[in-house]
């Protein structure tokens, strides 16, 4: 069977939309399930508060779902917009933006479930701190969405950049690489910043008067955790906007694709690792507020060391793009 360009573009839009929503559904579902499980535990501890806990659970789940809703928006756009172009690159753009948002929604969905669960559990222990807990949960899970927002930015920039006139080979590899760098790169950062926010909620429930240092260090830890996702975004931008000379050889194309995969996969580990560091730093600051300066410093240095593997990935990706 022979297809013309327009049918290939339609096929790619459908495939991209399907991948986007399919992958994007994974994370939020896990996160929301975790929240509900913690809410059940909380209600069994303190049945008189079941109304408040249910409210808190639903609020947390609503935020955890937003990453999936981003994926839904991109999938709808892919399915219902009429994409027409006279370049074969459009086929790769549609698949890549779907993959990018699909992978990008996984981490934030899982991550945002942790603080919501901890908030429910904390509410059962410490009903008086309810409003502080809710505020902290909202802030923490909103920051968890940052990597998903980065993936969304990359997906939209891919969709709306004008690729006409760019050589099909090796630009196709750059496009797929850009999607994978941002998409895969968002997984670790989303989960990691969720871990940091979880212990923030737990800490406030344990020590309600320590709310401002706990929230501050939590935000700091989350921000540093997301650094590797930002490297992913950076590599995506370079891959999208760098004009590469046309060549039929496969090696330059594979270098660009490899750069994206390298940065995407390389960002997963540091994201989770830095999240673990931030989680326990925040947890112990809530219990021992006096040691805040020392704990924060150790947390930042530890995160920097854990991040060095992400920086290696960034260096290799940049070498692949600019040197090879």
């Amino acid at each position, binding site marked *: 069977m022979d297809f013309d360009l327009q049918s290939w573009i339609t096929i790619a839009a459908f495939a991209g939309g399907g991948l986007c929503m399919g992958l994007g559904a994974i994370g939020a579902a896990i996160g929301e399930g975790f929240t509900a499980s913690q809410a059940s535990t909380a209600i069994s501890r303190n049945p008189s508060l079941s109304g408040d806990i249910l409210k808190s659970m639903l609020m947390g789940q609503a935020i955890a779902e937003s990453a999936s809703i*981003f994926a839904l*928006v991109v999938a*709808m*756009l892919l399915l219902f917009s009429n994409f027409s172009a006279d370049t074969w690159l459009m086929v790769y753009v549609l698949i890549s933006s779907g993959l990018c948002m699909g992978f990008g929604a996984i981490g934030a969905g899982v991550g945002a479930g942790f603080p919501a669960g901890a908030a429910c559990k904390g509410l059962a222990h410490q009903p008086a701190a309810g409003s502080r807990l809710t505020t902290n949960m*909202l*802030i923490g899970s*909103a*920051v968890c969405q*940052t990597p998903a*927002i*980065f993936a*969304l*930015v990359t997906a*939209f*920039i891919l969709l*709306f*950049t004008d690729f006409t006139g760019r050589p099909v080979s090796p630009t196709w590899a750059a496009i797929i690489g850009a999607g994978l760098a941002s998409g895969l790169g968002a997984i670790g950062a989303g989960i990691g910043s969720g871990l940091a926010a979880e212990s923030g909620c737990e800490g406030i429930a344990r020590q309600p008067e320590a709310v401002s240092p706990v929230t*501050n260090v939590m*935000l*700091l830890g989350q*921000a*540093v955790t*997301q*650094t590797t996702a*930002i*490297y992913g*975004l*950076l590599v995506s931008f370079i891959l999208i906007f760098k004009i590469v000379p046309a060549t039929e050889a496969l090696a330059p194309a594979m270098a660009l694709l490899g750069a994206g995969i390298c940065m995407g996969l390389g960002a997963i580990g540091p994201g989770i690792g830095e999240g673990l560091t931030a989680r326990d730093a925040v947890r112990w600051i809530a219990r021992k507020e006096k040691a805040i*300066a020392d704990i*924060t*410093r150790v947390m*930042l240095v530890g995160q*920097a060391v854990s991040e*060095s593997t992400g*920086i290696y990935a*960034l*260096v290799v990706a940049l070498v692949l793009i600019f040197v090879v």
Partner: protein
Amino acid sequence: MQELGKIHQLIIPFFGHDLTFNLEVILMTWIVIFILIAFGILINLKKNILPGPFQVVGELLIKTFSDLAEESLGEELAKRYSPMICALFMFLLISNWLGILPHLEEPTKDLNTTLGLGLMGTFFIAHFEGIRVKGLKNYLKEYTEPFIPMIPLNIIGELANVVSISFRLFGNIMGGSIIILVVSFLVYSIALPPFLNIFFGLFVGTIQAFVFTMLTTVYISLKVR
């Protein structure tokens, strides 16, 4: 949808190079600056022991950020830099909130703004203070830790700080405005856009302004200790 990714630029040739000015961003930045100046004048018009509404907000901001600066920088440096830190937060806050008004856009949506602010705080001020407080020799010695072959990676790590802090703010604000634009387009601007504006404009904007300010403070404090 067509306005997505469109930038009004003024390109001036300059000795063989093209100087590019993003006119909208410059205009929006000046609007933010005028709002802040007006806010400052309003606070100072009626100074009283019983503070008026503007004075209360001003005192709250200054107290919060001078405390924050003192906590991480120590008393002597905090005196010098807490005005800068407070001003940075107010500038970013108004910048991030500007997009909720029709026809106005966030200056922070442009990478040039955030990169400029990131270079100022995380690069120039942090390294200048690092050299001034610790001396050039101790400052340079830090790059050889934990052992000498790590020098290039330490340098890349320093540059990565600037990149990460500015891309974080840029990506969040840009992402928020894209989502608002696309969702408004998909639902024909019915019902949803105000809530999106509250979440991405006011809420995420405030958090990211605070995160940027705090990270700048922490990066400076890491260099001087």
